[in-house]
């Protein structure tokens, strides 16, 4: 960090109870406390959230899009993880 360039923070907002935090955008702040406050002003000024996470952008490790296929392939071939994999007789409810 040079003298005046504040680091970048990624902002995640829980829009209401029961939902998970979702990436809302990013902002610059000198430290975590200020990042949280700036995030509140910027991303929830129309009451869009009940909880905020801020994460230094440099702390995020992302999968590489080049590895897209091998990285996500194992999940794609396990359709049994999805409820639609299973045939349920008609008339059976609450499943």
């Amino acid at each position, binding site marked *: 960090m040079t*003298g*005046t360039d*504040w*680091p970048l923070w990624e902002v995640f907002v829980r829009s209401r109870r029961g939902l998970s935090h979702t990436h809302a*955008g990013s902002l610059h702040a000198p*430290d975590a406390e200020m990042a949280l406050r700036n995030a509140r002003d910027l991303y929830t*000024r129309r009451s869009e959230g009940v909880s905020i996470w801020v994460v*230094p952008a440099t702390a995020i490790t992302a999968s590489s*899009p080049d590895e897209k296929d091998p990285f996500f392939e194992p999940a794609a071939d396990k359709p049994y993880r999805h409820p639609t994999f299973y045939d349920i007789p008609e008339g059976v409810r609450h499943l």
Partner: protein
Amino acid sequence: MTTTAPETEVLAAVFDAAVAADERIEPRDWMPDAYRATLVRQIAQHAHSEIIGMQPEANWITRAPSLRRKAILMAKVQDEAGHGLYLYSAAETLGTGRDELLDKLHAGRQRYSSIFNYPTLTWADVGAIGWLVDGAAITNQVPLCRCSYGPYARAMVRICKEESFHQRQGYELLLTLSRGTEAQHAMAQDAVDRWWWPSLMMFGPPDDESAHSAQSMAWKIKRHSNDELRQRFVDICVPQAESLGLTLPDPDLRWNEARGHYDFGAIDWDEFHEVLRGNGPCNDQRIGQRRTAHENGAWVREAAAAHAAKHGKATA
């Protein structure tokens, strides 16, 4: 990441296919250098427009004639700062930091919408900006919500949602003036007279002279041509002006049954190019204020960074 020529060909094919299929390009995807450069240029110009655009309206915050209007105007100018932030963030995903873009703006090496080089001379100008300038901006921006670059499209969705109040407040403000005292009505008409033509220029040069349009359309960064959007805007405004009880300053404006659109007079492109070249009424003033704010704020930004470093809160 270095890639060999055949690899690049494959990546380019994947990119083209994604764009063709209306899929979004995301930050870590491979993209042509020119696509990245075009996006950075466009998003930066858009972000700069938001923050320079705060000035002509902030000019009236301290003189707003009612507390209700004052609250609305402050909230609107605040939104513009927020929109600037969303957009700088979108540009940042392409590897260009906000500081770098601001430096370019301050050095006059990147542009902002030339509309903000016109002065706000009366209170009615706040209304005219809301109705016409924000109206033109929305016409431009709604298609950008489907732009091929994901972060830009997402920023635009958020911005368009927030922007809708901006245009409405402007219209309501003008309507109140138009229906008010004689002096207020005259103030409203004068503002519309001054802002109409510059608003039409906001869509950029005519299609046959637009330098970047064709490639941007192919990449689905842009979805409609300048002239198409301009026509759409004129068609929307004419009936709105009638409801306002105000006239648009164009004697050639009339409905063309055959085209199904309003015909309108010739735009003074010399004026447009002059303003673009820096010769508008407020170019120096706008950049000057921006630069001063940035320079005056340097010690504040340094202090916060120094505090974070001292207390082990710095992250990078």
